[in-house]
C-alpha cells in the first residue's frame, strides 16, 4: 500500500500549508485567521483531485474496507484534536502572560519554541504512524531541530510571537515542498502513465 504515498503529494500539500501559515503569520495580513482556517478544507479537496489526476492513473485505484477507513478517520481526529488543543493552550497561555502567572505557564512561555517544535513533531510522528508513511518521521526530527534552532537566530526567541512561529513553519514548509517535489518527480518517472 506504500506506493500510494510515494507520490510526495502529502509532503507538497502539508508543506505548502505550513509555508502559507508561516507567511501569513509573518506578513500580518488582515483576515489571515479566516484564510488559514479555510485552507485545510480546500487543500483536502484539491489534494483528492490532484491524486485522481496524478496517482490513480499510474498505480491504480483501491478503496480500504469500511472498518479500516473508520479506524483511520478516528485516529486522525484524535491526533488533530490533541494537537489543536495543545497548540491553542500553548498560544493562549503564551501571549501576554503576566509575570504572576503560574510557573508552568511561564515555562511554556519561555521555552515556547521547544514546545511548538514538540507539538509539530508529535503531529508528524502520529500521522506518519497512522498513514504508514515513514518519511513523515523525518519531518518530526526536522521540527525538533528547526524550532530549537530559533534560539540562535530569532530576535525574541523567549517570547511567543507570530514572527517566531511563522519563520519556523515557513522553513519546514519549504523543506517539505522541496522534498515532496523530488518524490513526485521520482514517482512520475517510476510509474509512467499508460498510453
Amino acid at each position: 500500500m506504500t506506493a500510494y504515498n510515494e507520490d510526495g503529494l502529502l509532503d507538497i500539500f502539508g508543506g505548502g500549508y505550513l509555508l502559507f501559515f508561516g507567511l501569513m503569520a509573518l506578513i500580518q495580513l488582515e483576515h489571515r485567521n479566516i484564510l488559514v482556517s479555510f485552507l485545510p478544507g480546500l487543500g483536502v479537496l484539491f489534494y483528492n483531485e490532484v491524486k485522481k489526476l496524478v496517482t490513480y492513473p499510474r498505480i491504480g485505484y483501491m478503496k480500504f474496507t469500511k472498518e479500516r477507513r473508520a479506524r483511520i478517520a478516528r485516529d486522525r481526529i484524535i491526533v488533530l484534536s490533541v494537537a489543536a488543543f495543545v497548540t491553542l493552550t500553548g498560544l493562549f497561555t503564551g501571549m501576554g502572560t503576566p509575570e504572576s502567572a503560574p510557573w508552568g505557564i511561564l515555562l511554556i512561555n519561555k521555552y515556547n519554541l521547544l514546545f511548538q517544535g514538540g507539538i509539530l513533531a508529535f503531529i508528524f510522528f502520529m500521522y506518519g504512524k497512522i498513514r504508514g508513511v515513514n518519511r513523515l518521521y523525518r519531518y518530526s526530527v526536522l521540527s525538533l531541530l528547526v524550532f530549537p534552532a530559533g534560539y540562535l537566530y530569532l530576535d525574541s526567541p523567549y517570547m511567543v510571537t507570530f514572527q517566531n512561529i511563522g519563520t519556523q513553519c515557513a522553513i519546514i514548509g519549504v523543506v517539505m515542498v522541496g522534498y515532496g517535489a523530488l518524490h513526485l518527480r521520482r514517482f512520475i518517472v517510476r510509474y509512467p502513465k499508460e498510453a
Partner: protein
Amino acid sequence: MTPPSNKNLPSLNEIDRLIHEPARLLIMANLYVLEAADFMYLMNQTGLTFGNLSGHMTRLEEAGYIEVEKSFMDKRPNTRLSLTDAGRKSFEEYRKSMRGLLA
C-alpha cells in the same frame, strides 16, 4: 514405523489449493484488506503481468471468490475487483488452517 501425528494439524484436503497458489494468495491477501481495487493497482502490488493476473482473476472469479466489475472511467475501461463474502470466508479459513500448520 508410522510418523507421529498431530491432531491439530490440518489435513492436506483442508488446505484450499486455489488460494494456496502464490500468485492467487497475493491477490486474495491484497483484496482482503480492501473493499475494492482496480486491475492496475493489483498489477502494481503483486508484480504480476497483465496476462498472468488476468488468468488468476478468472479462476478466482469462477470459484466465486472474487467479483469483477467492468466499467468505463474517463472513457477508459476499468476493471474493479473485490472479494465476495464466500471469498472472504474462504480466505479466513485458509489463514486459520495455515496458522495451525505453522504454529
